[in-house]
């Protein structure tokens, strides 16, 4: 019997042996690309410090994840870019005047306590960036010092002490008033507010990119924004229903929250119906907090609360399996 000779090592593994080009890393990269227009916008509106705050936040998140993995001897996966996304998002929901030590503390809380201690990417219950922001409200003054938009303002902005404070549109609306800024300013982002949340237009461009790249579906953002719009339209506090609805949609963190935070895979439901209910829940809670809460912004807490309901929402709207018996199909 002739002996078979070959000089290479063969790898064996379970099928499939082919993989789609989409990986965790490409998805996170796409999210970062989608966030880029808003970052450019915030540099334009708030000055160079918007960039340095974001970069410091990203660097801190990556460092904390790396350090945690080293200390606990876990496999380090910082190359999946999820820590970068958390860093950018946390910076985006803080005022541009935030001291560096504060945002670094927020990053530590978000990455170590909220994400890694729960088991890392895929196991956290709530969105790390939003939890980090909620934690940072232990320093309410630092977190609600809003700077007026404009270059002359931003150029001299070295420390938070130099900030010229301004009322945000949501602070106005919280008192039942129409915002000082026009709807157009709200839409384009020419208003006070958190670093990355002010320009609805630039965030919507990012939304379009995420949809085009198939990273997210429109289910959560649209059901969320739609619910807010309907409730604002039905229960306006100003005289002009349309303007009030637009102000609720474009003012504050709704766009950022609905497009980038509520759609976080890890902390949103996997079923289609679950996603829609989750979006509606976020919308209702946002309006309730904005109207009746002690604090003017409702998006971050609304999403955090709905994050905790995901385990239940995963149970509704499950697909009926192929070939399920008729009776079972009807029951489901």
């Amino acid at each position, binding site marked *: *019997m*002739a002996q*078979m000779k*070959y*000089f*290479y*090592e*063969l*790898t*064996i*593994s*379970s*099928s*499939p*042996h*082919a*993989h*789609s080009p*989409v*990986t*965790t890393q*490409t*998805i996170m990269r796409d999210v970062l690309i989608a966030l880029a227009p808003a970052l450019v916008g915030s540099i334009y509106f708030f000055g160079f410090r918007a960039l340095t705050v974001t970069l410091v936040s990203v660097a801190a998140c990556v460092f904390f994840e790396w350090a945690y993995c080293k200390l606990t001897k*876990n*496999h380090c*996966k910082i190359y999946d870019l999820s820590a970068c996304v958390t860093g950018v998002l946390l910076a985006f929901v803080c005022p541009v005047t935030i001291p560096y030590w504060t945002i670094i503390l927020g990053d530590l809380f978000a990455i170590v306590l909220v994400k890694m201690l729960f088991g*890392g*990417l*895929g*196991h956290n219950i709530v969105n790390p960036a939003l939890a980090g922001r909620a934690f940072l409200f232990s320093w309410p003054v630092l977190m609600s010092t809003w700077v007026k938009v404009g270059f002359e303002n931003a150029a001299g902005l070295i420390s938070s002490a130099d900030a010229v404070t301004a009322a945000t549109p949501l602070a106005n609306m919280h008192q039942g008033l129409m915002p000082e800024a026009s709807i157009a300013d709200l839409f384009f982002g020419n208003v006070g507010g958190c670093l990355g949340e002010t320009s609805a237009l630039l965030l919507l461009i990012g939304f379009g990119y995420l949809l085009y790249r198939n990273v997210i579906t429109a289910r959560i953002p649209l059901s969320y924004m739609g619910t807010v719009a309907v409730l604002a339209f039905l229960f306006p506090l100003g005289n002009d229903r349309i303007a009030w609805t637009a102000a609720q949609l474009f003012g504050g963190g709704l766009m950022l929250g609905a497009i980038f935070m509520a759609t976080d*895979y*890890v902390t*949103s439901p*996997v*079923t289609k119906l679950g996603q829609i209910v989750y979006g509606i829940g976020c919308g209702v809670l946002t309006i309730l907090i904005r109207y009746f809460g002690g604090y003017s912004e409702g998006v971050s807490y609304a999403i955090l609360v709905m994050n905790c309901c995901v385990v239940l929402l*995963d149970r509704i709207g*499950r*697909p*009926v*399996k*192929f*070939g*399920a*018996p008729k009776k079972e199909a009807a029951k489901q």
Partner: protein
Amino acid sequence: MAFSFFGGVHPKENKWYACDKEIQEFPAPDFLVIPMSQHIGAPCKPLVKKGDLVTVGQKIGDNQGLCVPVHASVSGKVKVVEARPHTSGTTVMSVVIENDHQYTLCPDIQPRTQEQVDALTAEELISIIREGGVVGMGGATFPTHAKISSGLGKVDTIIVNAGECEPYITSDDRLCREMPEKVISGLKLLMRIFGLKEGHIGIEDNKPEAVKALKAHLAASDGIHVDVLPAKYPQGAEKQLIYAITGREVPSGGLPAAVGCAVFNAATCKAIHDVVYDGMPLIKRVVTVSGDVVMEPKNLLVPIGTNFNDLVNACGHSENPYKVLSGGPMMGAAQYDLAVPVIKGVNAVTVLGRKNEFAVEDPRCLRCGKCIDACPMKLMPVLMYKALQSNDVEEMKANNVMDCIECGCCAYTCPASVPLVLGFKVAKQLIRNAAAAAKK
């Protein structure tokens, strides 16, 4: 009428490597290893022993029960009868034949004229198909005679599966292009056995040449429809194909006969034609040798028992193979030893290079839900895998792990490269173990 099944994925087809290569006869090597188990069911018992002389087409193994015989694909001397590596990853009792290169035909093999064939009854045809060693040649290798017998009286729709949705593989495509009359003839025999006036050939729209060739050999009076289906993996999966053509859902845990359907692979139809008209049992099959590191991809008519190494060497490779698969990249089995022989269910040998590596250390599910959108069985792989991770057999069952067809759509699409199919194979075994333990 065509329905689109739920889910599915679009992996790179990569059919261009081999789709224009004509089927070539592959010369039989000096030694052939013919396993006694080339089908689902009871393995054959060898009918020959060391030193026996065998002829082409001679029956060398058979058994009772759910079993089909195996035949010698060359003439020569039986070198040894022993356990040898098999594409399933285990070793299987095999007859090793030393080829005398004379190709002496077995005297039992007698061609039949059209009149003789017309005179055969359904029972006789089924017995001829069994004696010819015909099994499902798409990979599942279910004995064809058993599929026919169990479907008699229940089946109202016969479907020929020429879908061939796996990347790289072109053996059925070439068969339909070069021998459409034999495929159609096999289908007509099946229609006769089942007493049906109509038949379907399901084929993906990425094989226009094969569609043309099949249609050119069909007359309206044949009652055979060529159903051109959109190219989408797994269009060639039995349940999905039946749904795409008839709109019927094979019930969970049931067989196609439960919805009046029977599906036969195109190569199986050709084998039925060969055994009925030429008397020639299934001793050769078309194998696509392809892959991204193969120098010269080919479609080869290979004697059963030829080892993979000869096929890979005949086509050459530009770099050391990373994986050699029996079948295509979505469902094929990775081989650890190229001494394994081509058996009846091997439609392709796919040789992949290192750049196909995608496994990651410590894969983490993102809960993105892409697996749910991809699953053609409408399952929720994300929750099935979670149940496996928590080792919860009841939860695995509740999430319908047993309905998984292991098509690989979920694992293909998973951004985190979670080894879902591997997990579900383990989960199924855990469920079976638990059921066996409960019985005791």
